[in-house]
């Protein structure tokens, strides 16, 4: 690789300055604030502040509600990432096979990505609200006691479906691009050797898509962890009980509804550590097994 060099010593710094400034203001500064606040106990108005060391962290980690949120988050994120990626891959491979109308299908499948998360949540709520939901009625007609307001499993299913649906478009787009990069000659050669469609997919397409899949795995995990707040807020509000309260939702609820800023800050610091660890693990261990053709 050629090393690109700038003749000027100051220019590179100037060029990265805007990005640095944004990171400092919108990431490092709030993160530092959160770190500071996580060691304090403070009334909502900030009139009396007390340094309490790691007491907030001890309280959070021994709180059964936090452990519940951790479990909910794992279930929610795993299902959301898996469903949205699996369905997107299926749709992408099927759209690839089409001869006519390929572009129309692609365009239509990308549309939901333009929907804001909170709106996506509202759409699913309107479809599945037990009182006025358009699809709740047929569900009840076929004998399902549909009541996500009280049934935790159904509520979880609903937020997972909404979150996954919203992300399918994004994944679809990347899978389509990934599929186009796979040389047709490989697939044709396999076909001549007598490999069937499923075999061609699992032995050629899927391994060659690995870089895309890996990238999407990281993106989807982060999405499920953070960007789905709007959906949960609109659809279930973390309920019933605490069945759909994820870690991020709990940070919001404890900080902004219950006004326990210290505990909320400690939770967000733990969350930050979890995300850093997850990303590091993904890059260190999973990436090694990925082939970049």
């Amino acid at each position: 690789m050629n090393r690109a060099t700038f003749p000027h010593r100051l220019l590179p710094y100037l060029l990265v300055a805007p990005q640095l400034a944004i990171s400092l203001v919108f990431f490092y500064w709030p993160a530092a604030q959160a770190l500071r606040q996580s060691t304090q106990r403070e009334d909502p108005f900030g009139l009396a502040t007390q340094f309490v060391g790691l007491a907030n962290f001890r309280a959070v980690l021994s709180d059964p509600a936090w452990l519940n949120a951790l479990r909910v988050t794992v279930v929610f994120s795993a299902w959301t990432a898996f469903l949205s990626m699996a369905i997107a891959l299926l749709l992408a491979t099927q759209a690839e096979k089409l001869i006519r109308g390929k572009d129309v299908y692609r365009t239509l499948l990308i549309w939901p990505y333009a929907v804001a998360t909170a709106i996506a949540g509202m759409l699913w709520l309107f479809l599945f609200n037990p009182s006025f939901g358009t699809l709740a009625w047929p569900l009840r007609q076929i004998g399902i006691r549909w009541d996500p307001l009280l049934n935790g499993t159904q509520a979880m299913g609903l937020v997972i479906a909404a979150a996954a649906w919203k992300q399918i478009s994004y994944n679809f787009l990347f899978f389509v691009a990934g599929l186009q990069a796979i040389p047709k000659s490989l697939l044709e050669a396999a076909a001549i050797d007598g490999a069937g469609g499923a075999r061609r997919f699992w032995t050629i397409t899927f391994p060659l898509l690995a870089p895309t899949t890996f990238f999407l795995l990281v993106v989807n995990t982060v999405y499920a962890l953070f960007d789905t707040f709007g959906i949960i807020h609109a659809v279930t509000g973390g309920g019933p009980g605490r069945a759909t309260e994820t870690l991020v939702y709990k940070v919001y609820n404890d900080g902004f509804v219950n006004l326990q800023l210290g505990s909320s800050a400690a939770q967000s610091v733990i969350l930050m550590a979890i995300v850093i660890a997850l990303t590091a693990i993904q890059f260190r261990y999973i990436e090694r097994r990925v082939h970049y053709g």
Partner: protein
Amino acid sequence: MTRGPILTAALLIGTAAAIPAEAKTDISWWHAMTGANAEVVTKIANDFNASQEDYEVVPVFKGTYPETLNAGIAAFRAKQAPDIMQVFDVGTGVMMAAEGAIKPVADVLDDAGMTFDKSQYLPGIVAYYSKPDGTMLSFPYNSSSPILYYNKDIFEKAGLDVNAPPKTWTEVWDMARKIKASGAAPCGYTSTWLTWIHLENFAAWNDVPYATNENGLAGSEAELEINAPIYVNHFQALADLAKDGTFKYGGRTSEAKQIFLAGECGIFTESSGGLGDIVKSGMNYGIGQLPYDSDAEGAPQNTIPGGASLWVFGGKSDETYKGVAAFFDYLSQTDVQEYLHQTSGYLPVTMAAYEATKESGFYEKNPGRETPILQMMGKEPTANSKGVRLVNLPQIRDIENEEFEKMLAGQQTAQQALDNAVERGNAAIQSALGQ
């Protein structure tokens, strides 16, 4: 969910900024009213602005009640607090604990040379928004009380007397079963705000304690007492009715109103402030008192105010406080209160407005509209019925709701739900007081 009002609010700010400032002092008023109630806010502010030349009240919509409270707190921390902020009933404890952040309404009025005559105001409401020593801290803007609504068409179909709403909870359960069994409606009974109606008001109305220390009004060290047998029996009855859908759960706040408006349930308990939407729907409805527990001695006692009050932030200029005082004085005027009461279903704050509404024949034309006032004023409040004030009542309500949801889903009995709520609630109060 309510992006519309935010836009309206943004437009309001826009137009307010466009008006040349002249010598007028702006008074910012953050509120959480939507729909018909938001129109009332706008009209009151406009009328006040037109009535004098020194001050300009600028109402700004800040989202739901909890969102408004949080916005106010965040603004205070950033030293950008509004002058007046509307805080819902359960946020009262939070605001009272923040003495350094607010200026008591009594002081605002005194400093402006106005005398605040308590006897002119409805006693139950003023008592709730005052310190234990009697200093009024916030101005009661919209007060409500839970009442019973019923669908007369469904009553008729079920063969019930359309002019005899249920008086006790046992009667509610019986009528709800009849409605369901007769097929008049798929569900008999539903309710908004289980915590506010079935715990806080249930306690006051039946004259049983909700928490120690006069429900927290006599001192912030309070322990919940909501797992007493009377509560357990009440909630077990609800849980049993929920099994076959005779009682239908709608959600933690006012979601159940949609179920009632859709004609799914025959009987409904909800705030008197929810009346506007029911009137608008054109339903053939009736109003009854909040039901009481027939086992409770001395029931019905009195209900406690819900709704919200206006708080004034500290650290503003004298000129601003004068404007705030003038605005509160305007709000207390009889015709303004009459308008507020008759349009929104909220209670009038002053005795004069109540008397004037009575004289105008409004209650004869609108039977049931006096019910919430009579409920609240019927009897001298006892130690159990002055209200509930806990430092973290919003959080306590969350805990109660979580336990109720598990109970209604059949995962636990009423006894377990209430025992858990007491245990977790007390721990939360202790941790909040530890601050």
